[in-house]
């Protein structure tokens, strides 16, 4: 593979590129799913190809091909240069890359059990066992289960001399029970919605999730929601469960801190950001308890944003994003670092596959746990009146990331420190900085989970990326609840 990358880099050099990098990716995926006691999905896929990124005449060009024969690789590299020269026609300033020391490195996701080594029979047996538990509950009208495995081997070489071989594994597992009755469709998912939990690890994740053990409870909750009261409308104290809080972090912190959005590069599609450059180290993003990092290092955990090096060869790093409530950092790349006065990239440039240009993406953007010991039950006990909300059902936020609205699958009323009646159709909404400034309690490390968001869309052509979000249940005061159903 390295030889193939060198063919591409040599042509880039010969044609006058001032910089080039080549990424070869060999990706393999397996998706298994059941639906109402039948097979829903059984598919394997593999994809191999090369993407070459060049700077020519001070501007970017990128070309990718699945054809790895020498002649085709050289044509792909030459095409990247032609594209760069067309880009240069409208150049304002030449691309400037923050310096990065060349490295030769190997990195692999710590993976105890290779998910592709587990037999298909064993996987299907698990899924059908869960399915039986879900379907056994009267009132469940649709049961879905899924297992997903991914392995990606990447060779990254650059004209600066970097040579990185990296192998990443990820696993996803989960299920959902639906109940349709009257004029209402209710749903419960486990461990989270949209395919469950996803992490960069092997099959050991499936063992850790206690999937079968929770299936009956989840199915019963889906049915019970039909008899639950609707979530009231008004201003309430809200406690968010970790996976819902993870998505809240993703949408209202992770996206606005992307420097490409801030600089207008995503204005036509994903949008821009309210976090204009003047807000760095001046904006009170949240209350003093709010500490957020973007951490791609293995020591942060096996998140979907964990790696050894990003897709332009920058080592994984931890960037303080919010420090004791103060906004302190953006997600950056080699091209954008200098625009915030940094002398080095934050290492967040990532591509969906070999055929996509790497762009700034979240790594693991996590809310650090509270320092004082605090369990979810203790937090509820400490709350006089409020609503506890669990598992995302809908999510939406404006294109500058100010106004958001989330719905959850289930909620519970909290009265005098006790979890009381179940609530359905829960939603809450707000303005990002007001919301994070209303946080007054975060559960401690024992309740903290690094959740995976496997479906983050960004870029043109659009790329789907996995991101990680560590979160422990947290409490927010005076939150607007229930406006999703207002007027309907």
């Amino acid at each position, binding site marked *: 593979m390295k030889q193939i990358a060198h063919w591409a880099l040599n042509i880039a050099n010969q044609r006058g590129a001032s910089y080039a990098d080549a990424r070869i990716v060999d990706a393999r995926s397996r998706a298994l799913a059941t639906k109402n006691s039948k097979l829903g999905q059984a598919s394997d896929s593999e994809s191999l*190809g090369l993407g070459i990124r060049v700077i020519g005449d001070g501007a*970017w060009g990128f070309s990718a091909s699945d054809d790895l024969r020498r002649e085709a690789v050289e044509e792909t590299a030459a095409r990247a240069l032609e594209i760069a020269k067309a880009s240069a026609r409208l150049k304002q300033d030449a691309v400037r890359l923050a310096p990065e020391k060349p490295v030769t490195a190997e990195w692999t996701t710590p993976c105890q059990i290779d998910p592709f080594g587990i037999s298909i029979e064993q996987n299907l047996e698990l899924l059908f066992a869960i399915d039986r538990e879900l379907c056994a509950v009267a009132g469940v009208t*649709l049961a879905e289960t899924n297992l997903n495995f991914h392995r990606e081997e990447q060779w990254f070489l650059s004209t600066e001399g970097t040579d990185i071989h990296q192998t990443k594994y990820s696993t996803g597992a989960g299920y959902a029970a639906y109940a349709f009755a009257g004029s209402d469709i209710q749903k419960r998912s486990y461990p989270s919605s949209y395919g469950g939990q996803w992490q960069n690890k092997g099959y050991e994740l499936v063992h850790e999730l206690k999937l079968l053990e929770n299936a009956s409870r989840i199915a019963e909750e889906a049915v019970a929601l039909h008899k639950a009261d609707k979530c009231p409308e008004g201003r309430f104290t809200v406690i968010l469960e970790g996976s819902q809080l993870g998505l809240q972090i993703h949408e209202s912190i992770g996206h606005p801190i992307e420097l490409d959005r801030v600089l207008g590069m995503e204005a*036509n599609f994903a949008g821009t950001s309210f976090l204009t450059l003047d807000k760095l180290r001046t904006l009170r993003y949240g209350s003093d308890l709010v500490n957020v990092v973007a951490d791609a290092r293995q020591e942060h955990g096996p998140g979907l944003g964990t790696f050894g090096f990003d897709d332009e060869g920058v080592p994984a790093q931890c960037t303080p994003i919010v420090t004791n409530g103060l906004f302190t950092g953006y997600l950056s790349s080699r091209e954008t670092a200098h625009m915030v006065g940094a002398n080095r990239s934050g290492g967040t440039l990532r591509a969906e596959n070999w055929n996509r240009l790497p762009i700034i993406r979240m790594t693991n953007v996590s809310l650090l746990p509270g320092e004082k010991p605090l369990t979810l039950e203790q937090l509820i006990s400490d709350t006089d009146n409020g609503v506890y909300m669990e598992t995302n059902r*809908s999510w939406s936020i404006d294109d500058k990331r100010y106004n958001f609205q989330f719905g959850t699958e289930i909620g519970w009323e909290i009265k005098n420190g006790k979890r009381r009646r179940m609530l359905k159709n829960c939603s809450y909404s707000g*303005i990002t900085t007001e919301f994070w400034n209303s946080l007054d309690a975060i559960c401690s490390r024992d309740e903290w989970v690094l959740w995976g968001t496997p479906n983050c869309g960004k870029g043109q052509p659009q790329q789907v990326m996995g991101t990680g979000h560590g979160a422990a249940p947290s409490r927010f005061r005076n939150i607007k609840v229930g406006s999703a159903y207002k007027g309907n």
Partner: protein
Amino acid sequence: MLTKDQAATIFAKLKKLSTADEIEVLFFGGKSALTRFANNTIHQNVAEENHGVSVRTVFAGRTARATTNKFDDASLQRVIQASEALTKVQHPDADLLPLFSGVENKSASPTRIPSRSFESTLALTPESRAEGVEQMIGIAKRHKLTAAGIFANSETIEGIFNSRGVAAWHTQSSCDISVTMLAADSSGWQKGNSPDASNLDARKLAETAAQKAIGSAGPQELPAGKYTVILEPAAVLDIVGFMFSDFSGLAILDQRSFLNDRIGKQIFGGNINIWDDVAHPLQSGAPFDGEGAPRQRVQLVENGIVKRLVYARPTAERMRRSEYKDQVGPIVPTGHGFPLPNELGEAPLNIIFSEPKQPTNVDQMIASTERGVLVTRLWYIREVDPYEKILTGMTRDGTFLVENGKVRHGLLNFRFNESLLHMLSNVEQMSGSVRASGEESFDMVVPAMKVRDFNFTEVTRF
């Protein structure tokens, strides 16, 4: 580009390698390129070539799929083995049908569509796309605005062969131009897509986006509430697109559709008529589905009443035996299935909203509005309630107050929470239908709509 003859040769190899009872092979891929600009400069500029082959094998009531983008003998051997390995370990499914044969019923006659591959699109180069971008940036500079957007073109193939003799092939070109114009406190947006690049006018799109940015400068706050809205076609497309996966027979069987217990009932206004028609001259895409069955023209909604659903072959078979069989209108395979195996079944993807006998253009809608909101596009739309079909989302890139028949000024953007059942029952006026393109839903042929009592629930900060 992979040709049909080359694909046929690969299919023959795969068929020989396979030990399965039946085999189906999909081919997909092509070439694409996209020039992306922001801050009045090209900042990303990409090209790609990739083809794939996806193999489905069938052994006595069992089936699975494996996919690769490599066509050498070892890779083809590996993809066959992977598909067969996934297939053999399953329990047989009595409902699994034999592969489509192409002649099993009258409704399966081939669907004829116009050519969708255009030299005007295929001939675009990095240089010519840069010229188009330069024109759009020129308009931005003339108005002292900042432009961002894309100019993209592609050439793709889609093919399906199976061991029962199906050999269907489709080639398609596609061109996309999208432009956002940014001012200090406002923005404007336009997007166009067509198989034929000569149907798109980059300068016109850029000028319209610029006028929206200029016209909405200094946006004022209008309190949240129910307003008459004038939704431009892109806004209509993006919100109505969220209901079409529910027009699937399998969604009814799964009881996850908002049409459960509503088929044959008046659920929209009498002025709403919706078709799915891949052969419509403004439509795009292949005339066959994921099993190779011809896509049929289907009237989904007639005078506000849901009349029909779309069906993949296996779904139609199941529906005929189901408790719903007498409640869902005609049950025939309509050629809308996704490649098997899958969890979703089928969906209509070539939507046409019939235009009224006397269309009303957007200017006429404005002129007839005492107080309302003109909406350029909607954004980040998500489902809040799956049965009442309540959707939430934001307005974006050009939201205006209309008063006494005139556009007055820009507005801060709204969050809406609106039921499609309400919205499509409250349509007062419609324009002629056009091919529209957005970011939340697939392209379709829709009118602009004037809708009363559209439910805005919050206002954002810009």
